[in-house]
């Protein structure tokens, strides 16, 4: 990859600067400013902002496959949740003897189910490094296996979307079962420590926010490097005219597989950062509706723009927090209406408002119509 900064346009630099600024300023306002000051950020807001940033990372991951390669994944929530569960398992094992049943090895739900020993899947999760590896490896391997078969058999368009949806739904049903071994319906919660720091403390929350923001910046740089390379140009070509790319001699299935796996790993990392900040992970995270919501964030922000996807996630979730408080019954109508309005009047999403973007390397113009090419 050539000199990275040369590939970043002005908007990208502004986005990076803003993200890094938030990573410093939010913790500072939360910790260093007196509580009664007008500038102080209360701890619950820090956690909320941290959650938004995790969603922004997920949206970035989704934009990479949908916006640049035309793979409309309606199951990206599955990779997010798998990363979240891997982190949740680490946090569960950190509880140790402080659980209700005070079993030093087994998490409470296992004692409750009368299990005597730790299932193999839970081995190693006392180590943060191992858990961190699994956060990336599990979504990555699942995406690789899924993509290997789907892309090789040339499943595209709406059919692919349907099977990604089935994937996340199947995982949801599996994780709901108590004997599957991941806490069943209740999921994993009551976390105490992360790396020895209390997950409840304000300082940990602020640090988690900061790490999330830095991760967003890093993922943005990685995504930007990918889409700015010749590989990225080929990816956009696959999105717009897949069979043409095949006749040029490219192995389209490998191109799709690579970006799908990278995207799944990023989604997994987002999920892992999300769990300690919200304090719970349960099978509800696999709900297909969550994955579809993520697609809406990307569409609202602007498909194929990366920045737009991240902003879309933050804007829609901010609206969601506000409206579910103010008019709880109408939120879903609002979200649906927003999607319709954006599709009709802002086909390039919020990023389209920034005016005609230059067709410079790295920033993909909004995709033509839909990927119904072949």
């Amino acid at each position: 990859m050539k000199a990275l900064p040369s590939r970043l346009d002005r908007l990208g630099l502004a986005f990076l600067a803003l993200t890094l600024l938030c990573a410093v300023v939010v913790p500072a306002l939360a910790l260093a400013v007196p509580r009664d000051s007008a500038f102080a950020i209360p701890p619950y807001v820090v956690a909320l902002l941290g959650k938004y940033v995790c969603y922004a990372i997920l949206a970035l991951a989704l934009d990479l496959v949908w916006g640049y390669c035309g793979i409309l994944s309606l199951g990206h929530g599955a990779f997010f949740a798998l990363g979240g569960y891997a982190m949740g398992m680490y946090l569960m094992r950190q509880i140790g003897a402080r659980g209700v049943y005070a079993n030093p090895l087994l998490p409470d739900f296992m004692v409750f189910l009368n299990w005597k020993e730790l299932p193999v899947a839970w081995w190693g999760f006392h180590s943060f490094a191992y858990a961190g590896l699994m956060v990336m490896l599990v979504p990555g391997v699942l995406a690789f296996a899924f993509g290997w078969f789907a892309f090789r058999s040339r499943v595209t368009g709406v059919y692919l979307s349907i099977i990604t949806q089935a994937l996340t739904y199947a995982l949801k049903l599996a994780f709901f079962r108590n004997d599957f071994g991941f806490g069943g319906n209740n999921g994993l919660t009551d976390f105490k420590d992360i790396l020895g720091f209390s997950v409840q403390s304000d300082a940990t929350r602020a640090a988690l926010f900061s790490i999330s923001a830095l991760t967003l910046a890093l993922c943005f740089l990685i995504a930007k490097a990918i889409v700015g390379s010749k590989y990225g140009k080929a990816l956009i070509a696959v999105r717009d005219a897949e069979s043409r790319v095949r006749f040029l001699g490219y192995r389209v299935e490998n191109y799709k597989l690579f970006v799908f796996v990278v995207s799944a790993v990023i989604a997994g990392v987002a999920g892992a950062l999300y769990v300690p900040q919200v304090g719970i992970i349960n099978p509800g995270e696999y709900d297909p509706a969550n994955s579809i919501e993520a697609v809406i964030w990307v569409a609202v922000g602007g498909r194929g723009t990366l920045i737009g996807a991240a902003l879309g996630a933050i804007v829609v979730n901010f609206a969601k927090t506000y409206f579910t408080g103010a008019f709880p019954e109408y939120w879903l109508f609002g979200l649906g209406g927003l999607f319709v309005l954006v599709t009709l009047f802002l086909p390039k999403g919020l990023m389209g408002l920034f005016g005609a973007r230059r067709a410079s390397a790295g920033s993909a113009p909004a995709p033509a119509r839909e990927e119904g090419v072949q």
Partner: protein
Amino acid sequence: MSEADNPKLTSSLLYLDGVSVSFDGYKALRGLSLVLEPGEMRAIIGPNGAGKTTMMDVITGKTRPDAGDVYFEGRHDLTQLDEAEIADLGVGRKFQKPTVFENHTVSDNILLAAKAPRGVFATLFGGAARQEREAIERILATTRLGDQRERLAGALSHGQKQWLEIGMLLAQDPKLLLVDEPVAGMTDAETAATAELLREIARDHSVVVVEHDMAFVRELGVKVTVLHEGAVLAEGSLDQVSADERVIEVYLGR
């Protein structure tokens, strides 16, 4: 594969023998046979449904024939390879409808087509090499798209898109170019310019052109193969085949 354990079966560049394809009972090709010598340019004509596009699909690996042999350079059995492998052997294809990457600039379109490693990691970490950039410049000049290089391909005129696609074919540097109806929808001036472009290309490439436009085929001045109902009806110079009774019957109706 080394040449020793895969000896040449024929000296011709492209060899089709008894190729049959049917879709749901409809026979698109019935025992089509065609031989193309290295360096040859050939025009294929025939009424709608004669099997011209299906023939292209078979050669490029998009469609597998039910029966028959398809050999490239006398040694590669194209019925056993897929699109990317066949493209890699040196068979380039231009579609009937111009298919360029509309969201890329003209020069990026050619860059993507240019002969270079096609692997994921090669394209992820490699930039455009100097010789690649020089090749792009050469092709931009040949296809008269030099001053359009930074425009999005989607903004080009129909004729320019066709030339860009021919330019992409050239960038692949294939041994064989398959060109499907290159002048459909072109003005007379554009048609003449395209014929000149193809003749230029045919100097160092083998070319198969499928075309409806007789004036254009005459301008190319090459050997003509007439297809009808999935098989070869006649072969020879344009004057010879247009004097053929059966060809007249097919084209003018009985």
